């Protein structure tokens, strides 16, 4: 089983879904990103993606703060970081979220959909998995950038 592979180090953080906890999740993910050898820019990108996922869990899956928990799992491999976010709230269909129009004039611009844009653009792999029995899982992978 993969979990016994010495090349993988797994850490978990389990916190109530409230906005003041986002900074703790961010710090937790930053440590894992450092361990995986990601550079400062990649680390910032992962932190942003995780932040956006967690804010969406609180706002949309649970509907508000202090309704349910968030479990964040980091799997560190020599050249990549996998972050799995797990919640037990309402599922959503990512295909139904309309991408923001980034070229619209200011008057017609909306901030909706920007979080998902960061998640998709800044992570190398994004997988959604929703089941009624086990809750919602979002798995994201960031590879270490190759030098040269």
């Amino acid at each position: 089983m993969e979990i016994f592979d010495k090349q993988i180090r797994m850490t978990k953080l389990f916190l109530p879904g409230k906005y003041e906890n986002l900074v703790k999740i961010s710090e937790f993910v930053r440590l894992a990103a450092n361990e995986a050898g990601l550079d400062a820019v990649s680390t910032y990108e992962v932190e942003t993606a995780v932040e956006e996922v967690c804010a969406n869990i609180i706002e949309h899956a649970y509907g508000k703060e202090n309704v349910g928990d968030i479990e964040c799992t980091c799997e560190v491999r020599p050249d990549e970081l996998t972050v799995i976010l797990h919640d037990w709230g309402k599922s959503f269909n990512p295909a139904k979220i309309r991408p923001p129009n980034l070229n619209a004039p200011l008057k017609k611009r909306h901030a909706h959909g920007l979080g998902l844009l960061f998640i998709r653009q800044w992570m190398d792999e994004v997988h959604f998995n929703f089941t009624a029995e086990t809750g919602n899982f979002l798995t994201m992978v960031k590879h270490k950038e190759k030098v040269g």
Partner: protein
Amino acid sequence: MEITTSSFKHCDLLKIKGRIDSATAPQLEKTIQALTNHSRFRIILDLKELEFMSSAGLRILMITQKACRRYNRGELVLAEVPDVIKSALELSGFTQLFKFFDDPLSAVGNF
């Protein structure tokens, strides 16, 4: 997040330190509203010491820019934006919505 406000004759300068996320964005929104409620629509955000900004922060920037530009009464401009935050602004298509300055004094001089 820490916000330090300096008022000039024609504009207000807000230095923001730390993180703008879903937890702290309401505080920034309130601080800006305190200015716009007093018809202060020329605002500079100095982001030199900003470590992190999520889409919750981008939302505030957009709302503020819409309020300031209305009736041509002012503008929100950004100064000393760190590279990682600039790349988030670029990805969101925000760079064409704001003027950027390398230092806060030239931003003040813009007004």
